[in-house]
């Protein structure tokens, strides 16, 4: 068990900067999710914690010890890879036992530990199989078992669920979270899937272009986004971001007219979540662009000027396309962002 501290980490590949000046504290036993689009530096960050990449600048501290110069194999860090990375020539049993063998755990303990780990992921019946004879979900569980079997200080997961189908992903998500709580191992989890981030994380770190955009609990990230990038990344569908002009306490854009704090003026961006919009009301005048019933909710797209506004409508809402419609905003749930994309706080 250990805390992790990143101090002013920079990673450059030639002229390209993969991670720029990143500082982060990860508490002991915390489940931290690094979230961002591909190429944002989240995997690089994780690989630096693992010791598979060296930071160009800065320190990585695990459990109070600077580990920059400590080799990956000596860091007591376990990792689950996107492609599972099971050893194809070994059975599941041998795969799970491999880290114990390499770390010279007494042979008398190995069998018990392997079976405990396998039972934890419900793979007890498949120990004699080779990875090639397992399904995707089973391979993923075998990789998990191999990572937890030696009770590492830190647990790293690099998009472990991205190769699974949606249904399996949901059940594996629950299993991973349960296991992390049970074992109380500090975990860093990389994903580009905001649902995974929201459901798993104690705290989320949102990254873009190698820089941290915001760090916070899922609730904070959702209700209090720091900038348009965070606002547009979280939520399904994400927040509507409408560029327009503020003058005299009104925000206007083609087809949109909403109240805004009187102190705002000039080009700003208004943000409103689809669930804070209602059909009927005076803020948006537009045409129905599309209606998507999903059963428990209906997603409605409205074309206001040139901008599509997403609305979570009642489950029984139905409409033809190109029908004129008005949309209302919950005035308490409006967000405003400056021209630089940063949140303008206060007011509203």
């Amino acid at each position: 068990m250990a805390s992790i501290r990143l101090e002013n980490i920079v990673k450059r590949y030639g002229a390209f900067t993969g991670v720029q000046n990143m500082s982060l504290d990860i508490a002991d036993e915390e489940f931290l999710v690094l979230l961002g689009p591909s190429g944002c530096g989240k995997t690089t960050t994780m690989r630096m914690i693992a010791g598979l990449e060296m930071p160009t600048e800065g320190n990585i501290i695990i459990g109070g010890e600077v580990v920059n110069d400590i080799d990956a194999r000596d860091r007591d860090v376990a990792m689950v890879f996107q492609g599972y990375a099971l050893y194809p020539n070994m059975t599941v049993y041998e795969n799970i036992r491999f880290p114990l063998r390499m770390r010279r755990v007494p042979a008398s303990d190995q069998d018990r530990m392997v079976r405990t780990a396998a039972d934890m992921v419900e793979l007890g019946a498949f120990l004699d199989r080779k990875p090639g004879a397992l399904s995707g979900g089973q391979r993923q569980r075998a990789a998990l078992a191999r990572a937890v079997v030696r009770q590492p200080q830190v647990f790293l997961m690099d998009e472990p669920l991205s190769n699974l189908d949606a249904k399996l992903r949901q059940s594996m998500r629950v299993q991973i979270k349960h296991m992390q709580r049970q074992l109380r191992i500090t975990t860093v989890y990389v994903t580009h899937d905001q649902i995974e981030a929201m459901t798993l994380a104690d705290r989320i770190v949102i990254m873009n272009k190698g820089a941290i955009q915001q760090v916070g609990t899922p609730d904070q990230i959702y209700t209090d986004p720091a900038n348009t990038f965070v606002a547009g990344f979280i939520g399904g569908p994400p927040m509507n971001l409408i560029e327009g002009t503020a003058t005299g306490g009104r925000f206007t854009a083609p087809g949109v007219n909403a109240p805004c704090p009187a102190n705002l003026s000039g080009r700003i961006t208004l943000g409103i979540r689809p669930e804070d919009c209602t059909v009927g009301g005076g803020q948006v005048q537009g045409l129905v662009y599309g209606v998507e019933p999903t059963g428990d909710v209906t997603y409605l797209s409205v074309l206001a000027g040139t901008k599509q506004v997403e609305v979570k409508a009642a489950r029984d809402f139905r409409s033809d396309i190109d029908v004129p419609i008005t949309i209302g905003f919950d005035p308490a749930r409006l967000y405003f962002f400056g021209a630089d994309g940063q949140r303008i706080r206060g007011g509203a």
Partner: protein
Amino acid sequence: MAKATPDRLRRRSPRMRAAFPYLLLTPALLYLLAITLYPGLFAIYQSLFVVKFLNWTWTGFGNYAAILKDREFWAALGNTAIIGGISLALQTAIALTVAYFAYRDPFIRGWRILYIMPMLFMPSAVAFIWKLAFNDGRVISDLLMSLGLIERNVDWLGNIWLARLTLITADVWQWTPFLFIIFVAGLQGQDQEIEEAARLDGASWPAIFWNISLPMLRPIIVVAVTLRGIDITTMFTNVYVMTQGSPGGATETMSYFIYRQGFRMFNFGYASAASVLMLIMTIIIAQTVVRRAFHSGKA
């Protein structure tokens, strides 16, 4: 509906359509017949006769019976196994070792041409160079003397094992690169995530190679070594140029034995029978090795 096939094709008669695949195969079949199949069948046919130039006398399996009692044949078989086996083991070991150290080098693509070069030389030229180096030119003896390792010129053909050593050296020098290139390609093709996973699991580089990379490389090793092994059993050029089977037949390989029977003693039927026997043995061994390796590689 749009036409999936042009009209021209559709008007082709059913007979023509049935014949078309065979028509396409014909050039390849003709080539095979002329180059491989005809001489092969001819050899089998000839092996059933005692041939003295145009005078063929039927003997049935007489040649085979005689060969199996021929001490020179068994000696040649033994020499081939010893020289080929040692040579193959050495080049596989060297190639694997060098590949292990080299495959992570990002510049390997650039400088591997240096390794391939021995393979690009004409085999007979290589054989003559080694002959010069060992016997006629005494280059190697001089080198060893100047290093103080020996005191007098070595007569490389004066000792059974030294003579065999010269053949082994020449073959290892020329063909280790072939295995090396294949092994490096195989290692580089392996999933790097697996290596990283092993690293995080606490494995050292040698442990990773021994426990993971090598077992994963196994099918490639088997195929490459089998190809090389087949090639080595037909080793001829080096023997012909460097030792001619001396001393006392200790370096006479199967190919050289067949050559001597056919083109020195003009026992064509006898030589044909020997090559048929050798072909059968090679096929059986290669088949067994490959099948074994792939069966235990799976499941």
